């Protein structure tokens, strides 16, 4: 028995040791590392479902919606639950495809997460978030799914809100569009971003992009407790979403509609027109009243995710790139509309305001003859008449004289470049800063720009000047191109005399956007201040409280005296009545609304002319600045001016009911009831 007792003693020690090991390990797992496992338990036990916030509306100046939300029944599929099924959910998808009337393969592709080798339409969101499969199901289809949940495990039909555009195609580029937010974008956002869901949308262009922070609100979160099979057991935590604020814009949807229509008609009237834009500004506030670009597109194309083909169509040459807004991205030579800058430059250069200037049919600059339009001599003119009749030679001469003063080909150390600097003072050559993304800067071709361009292109030009253009079939043309290349190679960095002459009448290398031109005219006819136009007017909470009013910043001042500015404005006031646009405005009741403005016909090498008309009305204390541009539209008086006339007719109701009663724009924000609806009247 002694031996047995001894061996039992060993066993005793062993048992004690085992007990201690278990206790120590339990302490380690539960107390030391407990918090870690609590976190992991929450991760396995719950599933966070992002509840998207209702996005704010975009409203016009009187509260009419430009973009609103409509509720839509959206059918979504929970991938996690499907993948836990024995057949990977194929059976459920097959049933779903029968209800939705879409092929199984399409549904399968849509719920497959994007990745290497998985092309669109694939799921870009989180694998735990239900994937929206169809945003346009009708109630009957949704009920079929909701009432037979046991047959459709993992499939839900929920009410979501999707964007709707009451104005149809109107202002599509300006309004912008939404796309699912990417993981990287979500990282940069503040606030709730516990998990990347893929249902959050982000504004990708236009106002939707610029005011995304205000519009989108804050997503809510539903932390659902699930069991091992992914079946929901209950809601553990709920954070209700905070709806986004509304954006009240200064757009007047009726004026917008009139503008779109006028632009469309102008595009149709010019046989080779390939693009156009119209800008209507409120000259008294600097806000945008209407902004149109042609060709346009129906923003509904974005709903429910765009197809690869649809996106290509929006950006293809063949369709005319309807996604691109010509109003802020179309850069064209402004033609004679640019003379407001040139005449101001003349004044700054010391040419007398009340002087008389000879307007010959032709003026020789640097050994080359520069002609008036059709080579007609207009005799001796005041600056006033020079603008009304659109004489070119007066400006050629002034620009050339200033060019020579600056040292001509071989400039002084600090050339004054009065013409280029005046153009900058009018806001050309840099983005206007309007509240739209990706605006183009235009171009002011001064000496520095020339030099910069030469540095970038001289290598190619110099090579071409040696090797010529052997691929060019036309001998004479090849020879011309070779000579041009040689000239550009050896002296491309020099501002040539012809460059200065062309610049003075808005031809050659100078490029402006319709928005730039509109705000330059606005500065001239209002108070001489250059503003950064604004479309957004106020950010309003869903309950109607105004969060902030968006100011219109003043970014510069025209270097003109009040007298000079009014002189130019007065001259322009006669253009539509007696000047180059008189034909286009024949029969327009000038006694009722006097329209001032300036036509522009810009030559484009190898293409039809760009047709411009920049205008303002009424000439006394202007309310509107309207600029229309039609690329390849021919003469300004032919295409753009009639479009502008049509816009004014619409605004003032010359032929039918006025878009803006009395032509006076509202100065007060729309009023909201506490439930967020707009109070009319």
């Amino acid at each position: 028995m002694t031996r047995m007792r001894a061996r039992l003693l060993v066993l005793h020690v062993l048992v004690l040791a085992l007990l201690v090991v278990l206790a120590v390990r339990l302490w380690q797992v539960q107390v030391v590392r407990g918090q870690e496992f609590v976190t992991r338990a929450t991760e396995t036990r719950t599933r966070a479902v992002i509840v998207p916030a209702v996005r704010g509306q975009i409203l016009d100046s009187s509260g009419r919606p430009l973009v609103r939300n409509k509720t839509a029944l959206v059918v979504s599929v929970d991938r996690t639950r499907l993948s836990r099924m024995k057949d990977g959910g194929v059976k459920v998808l097959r049933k779903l495809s029968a209800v939705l009337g879409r092929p199984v393969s399409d549904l399968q592709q849509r719920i497959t997460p994007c990745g290497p080798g998985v092309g669109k339409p694939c799921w870009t969101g989180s694998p735990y978030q239900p994937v929206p499969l169809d945003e346009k199901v009708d109630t009957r289809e949704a009920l079929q799914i909701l009432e037979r949940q046991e047959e459709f495990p993992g499939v839900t039909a929920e009410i979501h809100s999707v964007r709707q555009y009451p104005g149809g195609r109107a202002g599509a580029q300006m309004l912008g569009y939404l796309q699912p937010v990417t993981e990287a974008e979500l990282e940069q956002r503040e606030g709730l971003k516990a998990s990347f869901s893929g249902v959050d949308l982000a504004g990708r262009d236009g106002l939707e992009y610029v005011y995304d922070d205000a519009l989108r609100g804050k997503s809510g979160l539903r932390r659902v407790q699930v069991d091992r099979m992914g079946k929901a057991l209950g809601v553990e935590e709920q954070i209700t979403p905070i709806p986004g604020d509304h954006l009240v814009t200064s757009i007047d949807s009726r004026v917008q509609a009139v503008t779109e229509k006028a632009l469309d008609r102008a595009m149709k009237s010019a046989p080779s027109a390939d693009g156009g834009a119209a800008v209507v500004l409120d000259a008294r506030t600097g806000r945008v009243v209407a902004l149109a670009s042609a060709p346009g597109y129906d923003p509904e194309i974005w709903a429910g995710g765009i197809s690869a083909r649809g996106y290509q169509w929006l950006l293809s040459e063949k369709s005319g790139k309807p996604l691109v807004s010509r109003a802020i991205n179309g850069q064209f030579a402004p033609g004679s509309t640019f003379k407001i800058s040139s005449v101001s430059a003349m004044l700054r250069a010391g040419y007398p305001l009340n002087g008389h200037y000879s307007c010959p049919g032709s003026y020789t600059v640097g050994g080359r003859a520069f002609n008036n339009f059709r080579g007609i001599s207009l005799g001796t003119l005041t600056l006033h008449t020079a603008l009304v009749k659109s004489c070119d030679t007066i400006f050629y001469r002034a620009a050339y004289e200033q060019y020579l003063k600056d040292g001509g080909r071989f400039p002084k150390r600090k050339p004054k470049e009065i013409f280029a600097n005046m153009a900058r003072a009018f806001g050309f050559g840099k983005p206007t800063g309007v509240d739209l993304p990706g605006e183009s800067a235009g171009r002011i071709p001064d000496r520095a720009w020339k030099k910069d361009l030469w540095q970038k292109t001289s290598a190619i030009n110099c090579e071409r000047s040696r090797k010529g253009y052997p691929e060019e079939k036309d001998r004479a043309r090849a020879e011309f191109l070779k000579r041009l290349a040689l000239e550009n190679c050896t002296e491309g960095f020099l501002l040539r005399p012809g460059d200065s002459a062309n610049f003075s009448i808005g031809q050659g290398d100078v490029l402006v956007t319709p928005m730039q031109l509109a705000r330059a005219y606005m500065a001239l006819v209002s108070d001489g201040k250059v503003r950064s136009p604004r479309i957004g007017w106020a950010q309003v909470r869903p309950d109607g409280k105004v969060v902030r009013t968006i100011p219109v910043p003043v970014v510069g001042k025209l270097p003109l005296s009040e007298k000079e500015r009014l002189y130019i404005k007065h001259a322009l006031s006669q253009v539509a009545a007696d000047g180059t646009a008189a034909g286009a405005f024949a029969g327009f009741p000038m006694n009722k609304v006097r329209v001032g403005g300036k036509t522009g016909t810009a030559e484009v090498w190898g293409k039809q002319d760009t047709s411009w008309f920049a205008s303002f009305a009424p000439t006394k204390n202007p309310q509107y600045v309207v600029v229309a541009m039609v690329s390849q539209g021919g003469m300004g008086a032919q295409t753009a001016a009639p479009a502008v006339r049509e816009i004014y007719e619409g605004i003032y109701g010359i032929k039918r009911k006025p878009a803006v009663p009395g032509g006076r724009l509202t100065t007060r924000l729309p009023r909201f009831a506490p439930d967020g609806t707009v109070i009319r009247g």
Partner: protein
Amino acid sequence: MTARTAAVRRPSLLRRITAESSTVRRLDGLMLVAVAGLCVIGTLLVWSSTRTWAPGSTGLVKKHLLNETIGVVLCVIVAAVDHRAMRAYAPLVFLLSLVGLALVITPLGATINGSHSWILLGGGFAVQPSEFAKVGLLLIIAMLLAQPAEGTDRPRGFDVTLVLFAAAITLGLVMLQPDLGTALVLAVITAAGLIIAGVRKRLIGVLTLVAGAGVFAVFYFQMLEPYQVARFTAFVDPSVDPRGVGYNSTQSLIAIGSGQLLGKGLLGGGQTTGRFVPEQHTDFIFTVAGEEFGFLGSVTVVLLLGVVLLRGLKIARQCEDRFGTLVAGMIVCWFAFQTFINVGMTIGIMPITGLPLPFVSYGGTATFANLIAIGLLQAIRIRRQSFN
């Protein structure tokens, strides 16, 4: 009332129970309290882990209570029997358990939860003969080794051979099911019997070598089911297949760990409610204790089991006959092994093996066998003084 009449009358029942020499006074009360505590905790945990099977149900609690009641009855019966008389019954019990194991292999056997170790009795009841085989093997080993060789305190070589033979038959039948966990328990019981009985260290060494070679052969000739190999792989590195084999150990660790110090309260465990841990009412019942009662609760379970083990060892040491000591010692090793493997696998220090936690896990036959073993221990304790 005279003194005479009092001397004639038998003392009252209460008196007899509380008397210095009464059988009840000689019971190991502390062990019984610990076992009762474990049974109560087990019942609560079975409730918590099975109530979610159907809405509004109490799960397997009623059945578990019935099992425990039957087990207690069996325990009392066994405790009443003189363990020395049990020596005589040992061959019969052993043979019966062999018959039971053999029946499992015949068409009468049934497969539940992937292990073919059941005999269905009808009415939703089933027995698991391998649980009884533990008791049967333990008794025959104790019987064979109780008589030492002439003039020594070591068992006779012939008896040792018989022990190995009996163990081989039982193990073989269990491995045919196959039930690796029970086979390991049987091997541990056999080894414990031989060691406590006092076989030479040389023999222990040889047997260890043979066992090692056996384990090697099992792996080398791939005699294990693929899932068993996978469990070992997953034990070495649970991240190999977190959704598959590693899932069990990962999920049980999460459940236990998330209980922290005080636990989430009975029925308050989200992991348990969500049924993330598989087999939670049987092999993984300890995870419910860990999650809902926290460190304090789970350590209490371990302590109660420790009380049973240590009191069992005390009974073994105090017993004055070899048979009783051997039986008690082997029972302690059986429970110790099952406790350590079961709790160890839920906290990631042992590989996943299908063994229930004594007195806590749900399971009829196991409950019966465990309580019979307690009965045996108590029987030995009651009659620890050797009268021959």
